[in-house]
């Protein structure tokens, strides 16, 4: 239990990398990149968790009455999620253009840049 969340984050990162390296479809590769990124969400939130803590929102609890989990990592993760979505969108836009110009989205068939 003490290290499980961290190990899950490592698993997500490495699985995503494996998918990226072996992908036969660029859209699939972008999806794998999103999996890689979810590793960072899990790691950040796991680092900020506190046993018995509650959400750091004081609209219905009295300040100081209960321990709260770390709000900073939550703010970082929020930023990270938005970054991830925009990067995904931009990369997909590039994949669409590749499909148009090369007639394929299989990285094995892209032969223009080499050597």
């Amino acid at each position, binding site marked *: 239990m003490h290290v499980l*969340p961290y190990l899950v984050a490592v698993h997500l990162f490495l699985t995503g990398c494996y998918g990226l390296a072996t992908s036969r479809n660029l859209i699939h590769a972008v999806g794998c990149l999103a999996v890689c990124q979810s590793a960072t969400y899990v790691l950040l939130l796991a680092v900020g968790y506190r046993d018995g803590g509650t959400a750091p929102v004081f609209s219905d609890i009295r300040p100081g009455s209960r321990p709260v989990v770390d709000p900073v990592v939550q703010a970082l993760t929020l930023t990270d999620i938005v970054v991830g979505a925009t990067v*995904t*969108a931009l990369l*997909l836009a590039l994949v669409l253009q590749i499909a148009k110009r090369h007639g394929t989205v299989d990285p094995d068939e892209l032969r223009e840049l080499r050597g």
Partner: protein
Amino acid sequence: MADALIVVALLLVAASATAAVAQRDPARQALVLSFMGVLLAALFTVLQAPDVGLSQLAVGSALTPLLIMLSVRKVRRRGRARKEPE
């Protein structure tokens, strides 16, 4: 109790991530990713991060898969348009 929930959510996330990578068809992968987004949102809520859970729900399980589906559709439609004139 909370610990058990966290463990279950973590394992489900790990399993769905593996499935998302293993699913080589991008359209189906988008569905798996959407499912994984929901699981991540649930995990974040259990980890007492409702703010993050909400945005993961909106972004990870709706927006990103939608963009992937639209891209798949464009690429497929293109492929069909290519074949027709032949």
